[in-house]
């Protein structure tokens, strides 16, 4: 019987809940691949320790803890490419895994691909670890309780949510000489509070450090939403100015970043196809992807091909400046990798929407007849090529008339297309927040965004 990952215990310089020597794993995988005379090989080893406490009705529902390690291997030989991941990490298993992967490539057709550049890059840890978050599982219940108590004080009656802390380490080794490791920590809280009737409010706190984490503020927002949404009315269907809170805006912006992946453009699932160099948003709108950014916890110093990650301007002054590339898409587009591999599809790491110069209050004052949205879910597309979508607002939503919030709203749906929405951006706030939660995978630093002409509809019946 194979004894698995624990065999490497004791050789882990970095420590961690699973004692696996990530560099040793990578070295073994690449050496095995080289012996098979592959053209290119990448070994990416990952170790993650994540703790989570979930709660509902102000009570703990489950405490979760996952300690895992995984090895991903990429092989290329004569235009044939294969990717594989395994959690069976004993030396014997890794060797046979790489050999099996190589053997499986015989049945594949040849395809256009870009070889790994002979870079020989060495990556060193670039920060991103808060030691206070290692072993944070013991303090998660009290942090969750602080959020719940804060919500109760602000008017919430019962709260549900999840608080999660994790540390992830990724190590890379390629046959082209890229080598290094990167560790990150983060702590996130998603709290939703409920009050009378259908009233509900939402709060988030996301941080790469414990010091930047504020459960009380998230709880307060959720509680205030639950209080403020009492006796909400359904709006008339029609076109509205909409003030998108950072949580809502991040959800929609993530879909735009997805459309900027060169894979999506090639596949016909991008509204940004054929628009390089064109105006796709209002001049005040800027969107950048960062491999590593202060406060961000979604990226790392290198991508899955061993290229250095960087800041990539996607939309600059409203103009589409570039797509996100890996080596293969870059070759096809006669461009350069942007360090966003994804061995199959390039993807964003940490998104940043440029700030404006307005306060929230100033933005509300600018609205004649509009709606403030603080949370949403279930964004789905009628057509990714045209960018037509709809999304369902939830929690705090408020009608604004003559520059004043006049009452809470519920039971609506917002629909638009991505480019029209971006082109209608009027104002952006100075203040920005990091957003990552159930509906936003990519950590996004995002302001409040005021847009025009959004379709609001209601259900029949």
């Amino acid at each position: 019987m194979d004894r698995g990952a624990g065999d490497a215990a004791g050789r882990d310089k970095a420590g961690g809940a699973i004692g696996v020597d990530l560099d040793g794993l990578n070295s073994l995988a690449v050496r095995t691949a080289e012996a098979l005379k592959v053209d290119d090989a990448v070994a990416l080893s990952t170790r993650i320790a994540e703790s989570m406490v979930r709660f509902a009705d102000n009570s703990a529902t489950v405490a979760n803890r996952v300690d895992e390690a995984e090895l991903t291997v990429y092989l290329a030989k004569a235009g044939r490419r294969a990717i594989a991941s395994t959690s069976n990490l004993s030396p014997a298993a890794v060797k046979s895994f790489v050999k099996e992967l190589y053997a499986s490539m015989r049945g594949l057709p040849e395809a256009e691909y870009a070889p790994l550049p002979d870079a020989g890059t060495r990556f060193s840890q670039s920060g991103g670890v808060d030691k206070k978050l290692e072993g944070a599982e013991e303090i998660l219940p009290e942090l969750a309780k602080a959020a719940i108590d804060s919500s109760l004080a602000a008017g919430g009656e019962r709260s549900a949510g999840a608080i999660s802390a994790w540390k992830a380490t990724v190590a890379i080794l390629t046959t082209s000489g890229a080598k290094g490791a990167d560790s990150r920590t983060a702590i996130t809280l998603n709290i939703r509070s409920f009050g009378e009737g259908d009233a509900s409010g939402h709060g988030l706190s996301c941080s790469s450090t414990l010091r930047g984490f504020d459960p009380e503020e998230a709880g307060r927002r959720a509680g205030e939403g639950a209080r403020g949404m009492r006796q909400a009315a359904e709006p008339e269907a029609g076109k509205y100015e909409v003030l998108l809170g950072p949580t809502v805006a991040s959800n929609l912006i993530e879909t735009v970043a997805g459309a900027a992946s060169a894979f999506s453009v090639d596949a016909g699932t991008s509204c940004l196809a054929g628009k390089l160099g064109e105006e796709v948003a209002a001049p005040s709108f800027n969107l950048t992807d960062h491999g590593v950014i202060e406060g961000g916890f979604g990226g790392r110093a290198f991508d899955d091909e061993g290229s250095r990650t960087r800041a990539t301007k996607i939309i600059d002054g409203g103009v589409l400046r570039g797509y996100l590339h890996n080596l293969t898409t870059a070759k096809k587009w006669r461009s350069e990798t942007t360090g966003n591999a994804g061995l199959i599809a390039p993807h964003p790491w940490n998104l940043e929407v440029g700030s404006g110069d307005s306060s929230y209050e100033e933005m509300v004052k600018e609205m004649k007849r509009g709606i403030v949205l603080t949370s949403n879910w279930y964004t789905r597309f009628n057509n990714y090529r045209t960018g037509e979508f709809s999304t369902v607002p939830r929690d705090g939503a408020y009608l604004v008339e003559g520059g004043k919030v006049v009452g809470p709203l519920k039971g609506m749906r917002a629909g638009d297309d991505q480019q029209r929405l971006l082109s209608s951006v009027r104002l952006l706030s100075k203040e920005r927040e990091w957003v990552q939660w159930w509906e936003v995978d990519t950590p996004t630093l995002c302001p409040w965004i005021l847009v025009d002409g959004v379709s609001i509809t209601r259900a029949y019946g």
Partner: protein
Amino acid sequence: MRVQESRDLAEAGVSAALKAGASYAEARVQATWEREFGLKNGEPQPSVFVEGYGIGIRVIAGGALGFAATNAMRRKSVREVAAKAVRLAKASGGMLRRPVVFDSAKSARTSWAAPETEKIESADSAWLKEVLTDIDGRVADGRAGVKLTGRIFYLSAELQERYFVNSDGARVAGRVPRVSFGGSLTAVEAGSAAQRFIQQGETGGLEVVKRLGLVEKVVEQTEAMGRVLKASAKPPREEVDVVLGPELSGIAAHESVGHPQEADRVLGREGAQAGESYLRPDSLGMKIGSDEANVSDDPTLLHSNGYVPVDDEGVAAKKRSLIKGGIINEFLQNRATARQFGVESNGAARAVAFDREPIIRMANTFVEPGDYSTEEIFKEVKHGVYFKSFTEWNIDDKRLNQRYVGLEAYLIDHGELKGLVRSPVLEITTPKLWGSVKARSRHMEFEAATCGKGDPMQGAPVWTGGPETLLAGIRLGAR
């Protein structure tokens, strides 16, 4: 795979958890084996090969639920994980208002396997490539009557094996082979764009491709894209009758019946993520639909994408009659919610991987068939719209306000299908939708889907399906 060899580890995990102070403990060794291949615009993508293997241990300690998982599959690590689950559960006790208690459901001691004819493990890169190349070759370069500007196809063969043991005496070994297909088709002609996503899948071996008629289905869907691009008629603005094809019946059953009738949502456990429900614990027996509204969830359907005859709490699963004659009849239950409702679990707990806790999931949710033939359903309609397929859809988090945008949709005039309608929008409340059901055909079809729920997210394979369902007196919107 090595699941069967790890039974002793699972037993050791349960013993260690009990020794550490758990009043209940379970361990699940789960292994995933997957081979996948894709074509983008005919270009081969890197093949993908996944092997996952580990153990998840769930406990009740001090009245609180704890779950810990690892892929360090050795006895010492498993004991540590078990102790950690107990410690975390106890640590969360300070914010526990109600202790978690399981029902007394009978613990299964069995071994089960989804039937397969051609072993899933024989799916290699060459086979995956051959199937997709055949499909792509039938629709590329306008061969199916429409030029596709973008096309992505993926085919995967997957095997999930698990061994479950708990301190109540359950011992369950399960094996689920599955074949899944995904496709994205984009067509742009004369300034008009249409897009179609196809998902098909069943449990079983390589025979699934033929059983599904996969190649023919993709060709048929591509041909439909050509027709859709030419659609220009706007949907009627007046009230009309609507016929939901099986695809629409299925998604409506899943979204506005299955989800709100998950007992954990009714009790608020998913409140901050997938949301709660418009139903309350005392809503059983409430009339929500017409007498013709009958919706069920059945994990025991052979070959189905959501085939799970024994759930991940060691409880034999059974068919659940969710809405019967328009009445809320039954919720989907696990052992903890069943205890709160004073019923027995109906075996709805599933975990998609070793590192995920089992939560309440749908399996195969569908509108029950009726007595009409498909032709008779259409003959019932003087003026209406037939939704054969859909694109955009969503629903609010209480599951009351849903929207389905038709892709292939036709006007119905005195029982006859006439021309195509462009993007009709069915945006409707749950009581109105199910209260409008007038008739159902006996023709059933199912679609594969991946249902998202939980935190961390768990994408569970399911089927959605049903017959042609006739809704009377509906007002449609337009995109």
